């Protein structure tokens, strides 16, 4: 296919040269009757993409404490994320399209205050997401994610968990609404084995995303999110958290492969935790650089 396109482009003759500009405009107007025909090349096999994202974040409450953190506990954070995904061939059903994506991610979080470097950690995730996409209707999805966290300095695994989810999303012009429910099976390492699953929880959330294009390359992405989590295991049994999030980012597409974002996010959690108050407020603001390539 690529060679065909190359051959076609090699034989390209501009009508502007052949017949003059007026003829070209007339021809374009005439052709509009069956639509504008832009030559493209599409892939037929599974689509593989990979990328790297760098984030430099100023975070007011890095450890999500219920009280205002001391100055020592505040830090700028550097996050390096490497990811890859494979989108399998779509399955064409009678009224819908299935979309199946499998991906992996490695993330390294580094606190920029030297006193906090002991909290640096790395995490790995594997996920699957399957969409059943209708046209112009709600788009239901199912998925499964596995993730683990390791404390960098001690090479100590701290946590792993599996989380299946179902969700549905729908576009309303520039807005996208998503509702989602998931259950997290968790295993906290290193403590009492009888309480290792205390972060097991149901989480149900509603989210609205908005995209506002300022130009071809630049725009604003904003989101509002409200989630409720109910914990049902161990010392957390009966705990309920309400998490509210709002954020916006100004993105600039440098080229096909590179994008830069300036972002600010606010998160607030209130909780009815009995022994500990899990509520917190946090602001994140920073810079994000993303490089992605599709093979």
């Amino acid at each position: 296919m690529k060679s065909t396109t190359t051959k076609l482009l090699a034989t390209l003759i501009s009508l502007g040269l052949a017949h003059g500009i007026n003829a070209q405009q007339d021809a374009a107007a005439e052709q509009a009757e069956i639509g504008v025909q832009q030559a493209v090349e599409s892939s037929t096999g599974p689509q593989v993409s990979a990328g790297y994202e760098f984030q430099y974040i100023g975070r007011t409450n890095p450890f999500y404490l219920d009280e205002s953190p001391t100055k020592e506990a505040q830090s700028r954070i550097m996050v390096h994320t490497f990811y890859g995904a494979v989108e399998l061939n779509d399955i064409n059903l009678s009224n819908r399209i299935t979309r199946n994506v499998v991906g992996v991610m490695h993330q390294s979080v580094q606190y920029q205050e030297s006193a906090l470097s002991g909290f640096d950690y790395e995490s790995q995730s594997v996920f699957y997401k399957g969409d059943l996409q209708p046209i112009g209707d709600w788009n239901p999805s199912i998925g499964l994610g596995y993730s683990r966290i390791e404390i960098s300095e001690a090479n100590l695994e701290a946590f792993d968990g599996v989380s299946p989810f179902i969700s549905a999303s729908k576009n309303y012009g520039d807005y996208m609404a998503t509702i989602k429910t998931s259950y997290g099976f968790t295993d906290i390492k290193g403590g009492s084995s009888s309480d290792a699953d205390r972060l097991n929880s149901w989480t149900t959330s509603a989210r609205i995303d908005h995209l506002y294009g300022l130009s071809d390359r630049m725009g604003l992405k904003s989101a509002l999110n409200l989630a409720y989590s109910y914990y049902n295991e161990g010392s957390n049994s009966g705990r309920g958290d309400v998490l509210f999030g709002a954020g916006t980012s100004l993105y600039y597409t440098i080229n096909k492969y590179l994008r830069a974002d300036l972002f600010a996010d606010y998160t607030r959690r209130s909780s009815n935790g009995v022994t500990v108050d899990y509520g917190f407020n946090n602001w994140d603001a920073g810079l994000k650089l993303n490089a992605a390539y599709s093979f």
Partner: protein
Amino acid sequence: MKGAIYRKIAPFIFSVLLIGSLTASEEYCLYLRSLLKDSVDGKSPPLTTRKPNIPLHSGQVASVGAQSRLEFIGPAGEMLRIGHNSEFAPVGLNRLEFSHGSFLFFVQREGPRYSFVTKGVEILIAGYGTFLGEIMPLGGLKLIPLTGEGQIISQSQSSVEKFYPGQIHFYLPNGERPPNVEIDITLLVNSCPLITAFEDTLPSFREITKRAHLQARTIKFRSNSFVYDAVGKDRIRFLVPQPTEKKDKPGNGSKFGKWLKSKLPF
């Protein structure tokens, strides 16, 4: 009969003419279901006459003027939309002969097989689906399947080829077959009056949208030019957009631009 036809299409009389041959066969005919004319002054609404049910018999010629379009229904529910500045005639059973212009054709899986004919070219669609077609300015037929499955049999070029939605097929009067070109279905659909201008939604519109959706996710390369026609085996002509002046940039002619430029120190 001729008088009755003219009375029914009186609002379109200057742009749409059905020139009938009263001796034509009565056995096979298409029925005119919708007439459409764009707003003349750009302000008044477009004129639409629906379901006039005027039969177009084999041998009769339908000629469409500027900014007017027609929609016909065949005996098995097949649909034919004719673009502006077009002229065609059904000639015999399931055989449509075009002298110029453009069309959209939709036929169901169990529907009849149609032939499309223009000077030096005759093709048979051995399959079903939705197809856009255009008689190219220097002769020959451009055919774009949008949905469906099957083969296109070119009788003038003695070729049989499976078609894939989203690819342009060229058929030249001299028998040459330029390579097929894949095109962006979304852009085509959004800019095609034969799909969007009519009040009735195409029966296959959902399938077209699905195809566009599927293709949009797999596009890897996008040309900055637009396919126009083909004039030889290796000669496909493209339209290259002229660069346009951006008025919102400083100094490019807008008041704001001039003001901004006057304030800048460089």
